């Protein structure tokens, strides 16, 4: 019987990890569809950013209430993994509470389990409050129109899964303690009461040994299967940020927010016009790349990593002046659209071995011109993101494509361009009057 359970466990583990790894490989391939961008510089500053922003969650604390709740859920999630290690070893080796076998360590063991229970309870409470904020209080940021449908369900599935997993862990421990010292349950090692579940053992005291073992084993199995489910749910969900927040913070922009990326190819083009002798040889441009971005493959790999790192919290959108005044633009939607389109392109490649034109692009089919036109480039979205996503960089690249490839500009902008070209100022004034203020 034991052996069957062990084998079953090993099969589940291998399958769970394999399917996860395969999907992650696919995501990596998708991210690398983006254009090259060398971000290998300044590793000291990058490690520091990762430490402060991803591990330390520095930017979350602009908003203390969700920050503390999030910290509890995140801290609990990470530290409880130590217990998952024991669960793994138990499952593979057929033990029950392997780490409690050394008699001298039992006090410490019970203490640690107690501590994990405390964390599990904090995760549970945190998730319940998050659920209430989302579905009952209906915090505005968490109930905007771009979240209708799947994104909203996704958020609730994540919260419910975490609530269920933590409940299973606590019920398992309660049943375990009810079994300790009972005849017929000798392998349930007697331990000091656990901090949280220890208070609920009396609820289970009337149950028979076999019922209790049934409860304990079911919880154990459901918990670990739940973890395998969750692991494989992550790549399809916004919750993947728990992994990508780290590389994304590492590779985040180190230059001032106000700085727009230079377009070297256009710079060379101008140089070629003005000073042909100084311009780099024209042969260097082997293939013409689109100016700006029309589809996800025109974006840089960092933009695509950004898209997979977004957990749709909406801090960007809630500070966007355009969104605040009812315009169509939502920086969160820019990130969600980029991810959705990237997934679509990825599936296309998986199915056809290479990308088969589907007549769609990120620009127009996902992100409309009106959205792009509403941006004031104020960088509030960039500043707000706790994991250093840069929606503005994507907006800028799409805008460049609209102007330079499609000559798609509002009439007033065309006039402004004309004025700059002819009068060296965006307004229609004579360049001779530029210093007229001196004598006025």
């Amino acid at each position, binding site marked *: 019987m034991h052996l069957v359970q062990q084998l079953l466990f090993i099969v589940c583990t291998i399958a769970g990890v394999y399917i996860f790894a395969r999907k992650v490989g696919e995501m990596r391939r998708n991210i690398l569809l983006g254009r090259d961008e060398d971000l290998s510089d300044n590793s000291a500053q990058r490690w520091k950013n990762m430490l402060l922003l991803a591990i330390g969650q520095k930017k979350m604390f602009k908003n203390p209430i969700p920050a503390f709740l999030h910290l509890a859920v995140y801290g609990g999630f990470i530290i409880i993994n130590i217990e998952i290690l024991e669960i793994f070893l138990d499952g593979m080796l057929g033990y029950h509470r392997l780490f409690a076998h050394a008699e001298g360590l039992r006090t410490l063991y019970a203490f640690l389990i107690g501590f994990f229970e405390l964390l599990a309870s904090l995760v549970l409470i945190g998730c319940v409050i998050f659920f209430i904020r989302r579905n009952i209080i209906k915090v505005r940021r968490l109930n905007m129109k771009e979240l209708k449908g799947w994104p909203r369900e996704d958020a609730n599935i994540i919260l419910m899964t975490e609530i269920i997993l933590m409940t299973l862990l606590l019920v398992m421990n309660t049943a375990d303690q009810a079994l300790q010292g009972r005849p017929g349950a000798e392998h349930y090692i007697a331990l000091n009461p656990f901090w949280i579940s220890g208070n609920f053992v009396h609820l289970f005291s009337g149950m028979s040994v076999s019922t209790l073992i049934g409860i304990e084993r079911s919880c154990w199995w459901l918990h670990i299967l739940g973890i395998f489910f969750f692991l494989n749910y992550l790549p399809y969900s916004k919750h993947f940020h728990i992994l990508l927040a780290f590389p994304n913070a590492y590779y985040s922009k180190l*230059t*001032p*927010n*106000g*700085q*727009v990326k*230079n*377009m070297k190819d*256009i*710079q060379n*083009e*101008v*140089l070629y016009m*003005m000073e042909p002798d100084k311009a780099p040889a024209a042969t260097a441009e082997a293939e013409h790349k689109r100016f*700006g971005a029309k589809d996800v493959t025109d974006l840089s790999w960092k933009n695509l990593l950004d898209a997979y790192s977004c957990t749709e919290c909406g801090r960007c959108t809630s*500070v966007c*002046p*355009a969104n605040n*005044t*009812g*315009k*169509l*633009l939502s920086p969160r939607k820019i990130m969600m659209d980029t991810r959705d389109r990237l997934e679509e392109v990825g599936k296309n490649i998986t199915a056809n071995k290479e990308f088969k034109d589907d007549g769609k692009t990120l620009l127009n089919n996902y992100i409309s011109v009106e959205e792009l*036109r*509403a941006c*004031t*480039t*104020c*960088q*509030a979205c960039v*500043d707000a993101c706790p994991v250093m996503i840069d929606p503005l960089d994507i907006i*800028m690249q799409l*805008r*460049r494509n*609209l*102007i*330079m490839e499609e000559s798609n*500009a*509002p009439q*007033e*902008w065309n*006039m*402004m*361009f004309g004025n*700059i*070209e002819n009068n*060296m*100022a*965006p*307004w229609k*004034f004579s*360049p*001779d*009057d*530029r*210093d*007229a*203020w*001196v004598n*006025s």
Partner: protein
Amino acid sequence: MSVKSMAEYAANGENPEVLFWVGCAGSFDQRAQKVTKAFTQILDKAGIKFAILGKEEMCTGDPARRAGNEFMFQMMAYNNIQTMNGYGIKKVITICPHCYNIFKNEYPALGGNYEVMHHTTFLQQLINEGTIKLKDGGVFKGQKITYHDSCYLGRGNAIYDAPREVLEAFDNELVEMKRCKSNGMCCGAGGAQMFKEEEPGTNRINFERAGQALETGATIIASNCPFCMTMLSDGVKNKEKEDSVKVLDIAEMVAMSL
């Protein structure tokens, strides 16, 4: 007061300490011209040898670049850098955060390397060094002032304190809006919005922002950007508060207190 151009200095074989980059708004916009004049008065009073480029100055290319017209931006940048490098300019002061940002962050990649200062940082320096002294019990004594962070000085370049320090030098009360510093709200002009109609929405960004400024009960809204100045002035007018609430550039406030 005489304002000399770089060409005039060069003709005399002289080198000014700084180039005052006036910018398109400072040159042509009637309201912004007042800021330009106020700032030249301060430079004059502080005894700083400065020049303007005059007719040789051109748009930095900021609105073109942010609208997506990289080609036009590169053209303007090329021309300006040629002019500035031709004069051997080392230090630039500007009254526009968009010009400031582009000189500071975007021209270096194109061969334009200058020490750049926004006028509010420069004013703070002049006051701290004692080069200029504000009158005791000046015109702003006891008035409530609120400060609007422009995007390209604030979030764009993390300059939040220098302009506030200048304002604190007046004998008055500085009140913050709910959205300030890194969470400050845009006036609605950036990203070339200044030059087009807003997209359809429920409110105008400048009306929203002006409302936030008025909520503080301040009678002066201090700004550091000619575009914010236009947007906020229109916003205040929309709320019919233009008689009781003034939108002033920090340079104007300093000039009035000398």
